[in-house]
């Protein structure tokens, strides 16, 4: 199955998916040193986003979240790709400054958790 969206940061990667059905605030919801989800309300609590194709509806919360994505990357705990349903500035800016391939405008309901996904962020599509 091919899912089409819009490229934010180019790149081609393949990894397993981690899917959050709720919006993510990188400041507060994610531990920048460990790369784990520390928001107890989130169903993925305790799981690591490092090296995953991290899929969630959109970003929320403080604009400092962009810097947290950057810190994850420097700590080698960042997702390998970011996939969003809706356009939102905090995550887009974070992906750009951190060189993390990113696609948005994706129908994320079609992506199962923990499944191998090929991301062609240069052309703005995913292959399951």
């Amino acid at each position, binding site marked *: 199955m091919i899912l089409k969206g*819009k490229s*934010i*940061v180019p790149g081609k990667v393949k990894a397993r998916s981690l899917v959050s059905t709720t919006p993510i605030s990188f400041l507060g919801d994610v531990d*920048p040193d460990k790369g784990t989800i520390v928001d107890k309300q989130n169903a993925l609590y305790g799981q690591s986003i490092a090296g995953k194709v991290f899929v969630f509806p959109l970003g929320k919360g403080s*604009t*400092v979240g*962009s*810097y*947290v994505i*950057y*810190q994850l990357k*420097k700590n080698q705990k960042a997702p390998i790709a970011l996939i969003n349903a809706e*356009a*939102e*500035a*905090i995550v*887009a*800016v974070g992906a*750009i*400054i951190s060189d993390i391939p990113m696609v948005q405008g994706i129908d994320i309901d079609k992506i199962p958790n923990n499944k191998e996904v090929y991301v062609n962020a240069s052309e703005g599509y995913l292959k399951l």
Partner: protein
Amino acid sequence: MFLTKQEEKILDGELGPIKAKAMRILATLGDIFDADKLIPIDSVQVSGVSYKTIGDAGLSFLEDWSHAKVVVETRMNPAGMDLINWKEMGISEDFANKQLRIIDALTSMGIQKSCTCTPYHAGLIPAKGSHIAWSESSAVVFANSILGAMTNREGGPSALSAALIGKTPNYGMHLERNRVGEILFEVDFDLTDFDFSLLGYYIGKYAQNKIPIISGIKKANQIQLKSLGAGAAASGGIPLFMIKNITPEFRIIEKPERIHVDHEELISIQEDLTNCDRPNIISFGCPHCSLEEIEEIIQKNKTNKEIWICTTKQAKEKIKAVPSNIKIFSDTCMVVAPVEKLGIECLATDSTKSAHYSQTLSQIKTILKPREELLNDIKG
């Protein structure tokens, strides 16, 4: 969004990898918010300066970007401490070192070390109709509503990118068609200085992302309007308000929704933002006090409690005689300083914005009262 040939070359790396990323941020934000093009800006005010707000993540980012240079006049938002007298605030060595590294990184990019939320009290007054990219929320609302300049509420990285490129995406508050009052707040009583802060907070709470219009204010000085805007931007993210004969471009829709403002409701905001009764300090300067305000505070000071005044470096340098219970700090404010680590559990203020963020961001308790009452407070 359309990019010129020159802008595309920057995106492709002609001016190096950092400017390429800055351009990508502007282009992407332009796409997200449906801008048609980038427009030149006259000045930038960068937020995300305090180590308390951006932490190690922001510090490491700014140091990595520190060798790129800004191309327009750029100022800094307040830092987490007075850059010289930080020891007097009780700031730790570790915090101070990291804060100074942030300032060094920003300074080496060509950003002026004038850390204030009121650049208009420090010589940077954008022209009416000019495009700017400012980020501190009360400065944004002041620039749009009182000075008639045009700016969106920028975030740290987007303002920094605008400073490095000298342009910003043309959307939101940069378009005349979006600068129109949509929801009318009717005031039918005389406002004290303190009421302006309460009214702003009230409007921000009930404007529902619409541009507010305020009727019934015949006269207001810049200090009162500064308080009004700061309150509105703290409780509701308001970028612009319209007051007839005050806002340079008074433009409203035909039949705006109306809300009648009751003085009782303003008093209830004061009660909501008061949850302690014995202040460790009384704090003024949110937004930063002007020189005239400081002179008036010193003159009317009757309290024996400790007062901290936050202001611009320019104003602080001009004040010579300071009473023993008053400390004047520049470059910082009680919103972005690590007050919760300075032994302050209960902070008294005359600013709804300061009370709001003290409770939410710093998680300390507050007393919200008019300035005159705080200056006359001589109880133990």
